[in-house]
């Protein structure tokens, strides 16, 4: 068993949860659309948007981070002033630092083809001073077939994370009591036809909205990371990892395994 764990460790993407190996790649085994960003994996980070100059040390800007889901939805930023920075925290965990002013990344347009989304984010929120967009599909999470995660939200008190899940009607569960600076694994689960919008923090459900979300699938949008549409609501904090999956609802075990994996990259709890 020890030998087996060692071999898995060399692959660099497995963790053990209840004695079972787990990789986020398994979430995309049926070719589910989405993206998996892992800043702890230096081989996925580049200083330029084209992906020609690798990131080799903390303090370097990140113009491209490769998608490990296998879908090819690499996130990029071509403008020098808007690139997040690769950093390593005091526990040796790598992350992307967003300055809360003008840093952001964007993926290509992703076509979900389904009305369910699961998002797992390892984050450190450094400020509650202003509404900020951790992640958003398209230019507004309230648009038809869109979603977003705000860190914090606009509503007072601002010590929050907010998830917006929108079919034709937006629903917004708010996780309160998470005052910055704070490190969390934030999970958001949206199901339009199931009328479920759930936000979990550090492996525990923090809020849920079961009101009607209307109809339709999540629609084709690019994913903006760290700033609304690249123009407003900048996120001030760190991203240790990000998984966005459009696919059938996950089991409780799959959610727990993914949160445990994300926490191994984040150190939130």
């Amino acid at each position, binding site marked *: 068993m020890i030998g087996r764990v060692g071999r898995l460790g060399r692959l660099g993407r497995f963790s053990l949860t209840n004695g079972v190996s787990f990789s986020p790649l398994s979430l995309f085994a049926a070719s589910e659309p989405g993206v998996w960003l892992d800043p702890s994996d230096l081989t996925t980070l580049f200083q330029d*948007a084209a992906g020609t100059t690798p990131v080799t040390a903390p303090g*370097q800007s990140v113009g491209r981070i490769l998608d490990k889901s296998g879908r090819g939805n690499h996130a990029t930023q*071509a*403008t020098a*002033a808007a690139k997040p920075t690769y950093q390593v925290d005091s526990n040796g965990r790598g992350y992307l630092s967003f*300055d809360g002013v003008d840093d952001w990344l964007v993926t290509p347009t992703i076509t979900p083809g389904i009305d369910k989304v699961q998002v797992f984010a390892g984050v450190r929120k450094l400020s509650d001073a202003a509404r900020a967009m951790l992640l958003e599909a398209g230019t507004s999470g*309230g648009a038809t077939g869109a979603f977003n995660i705000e860190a914090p939200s606009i509503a007072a008190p601002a010590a929050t994370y907010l998830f917006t899940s929108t079919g034709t009607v937006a629903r917004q569960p708010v996780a309160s009591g998470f005052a910055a600076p704070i490190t969390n694994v934030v999970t958001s689960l949206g199901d339009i036809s199931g009328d479920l919008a759930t936000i979990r923090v550090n492996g525990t459900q923090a809020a849920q909205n079961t009101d009607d979300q209307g109809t339709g699938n999540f629609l084709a949008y690019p994913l903006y990371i760290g700033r609304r549409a*690249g123009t*407003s609501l900048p996120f001030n904090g760190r991203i240790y990892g990000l998984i966005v999956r459009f696919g059938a609802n996950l089991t409780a075990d799959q959610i727990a395994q993914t949160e445990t994996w994300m926490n191994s990259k984040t150190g939130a709890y």
Partner: protein
Amino acid sequence: MDCPYSAVLILPSEYKDDGDAFSEMMGWGPNCYSVPLSETGHHPATHYGCRAQVQQSFIDMFDDPPMEAVELINVLIPVDGRFLETDDGYTHFATAISEIGLKVIDDVAL
């Protein structure tokens, strides 16, 4: 590449296109001045800002600017501490715009 300095650059809105064009010409990418600013925090933007980690060579350019940058540098809004040795860009930018009476224009849509 070590970039120990935080830079805050603010332009009147009428020079945004010139600033963006110069930044793109220098290879720094499009839409460099992307933060809309005004005294009220509401539209329309009267100024645009950008914030970046930079090297000493970037700062040196302001002391001995290339000819094509002179006009642009002259219209940048003077702020105390335009360059600071910090990686806390959020505080640097917030302090800089507060000193000149500007606020970020935020989006209030869902």
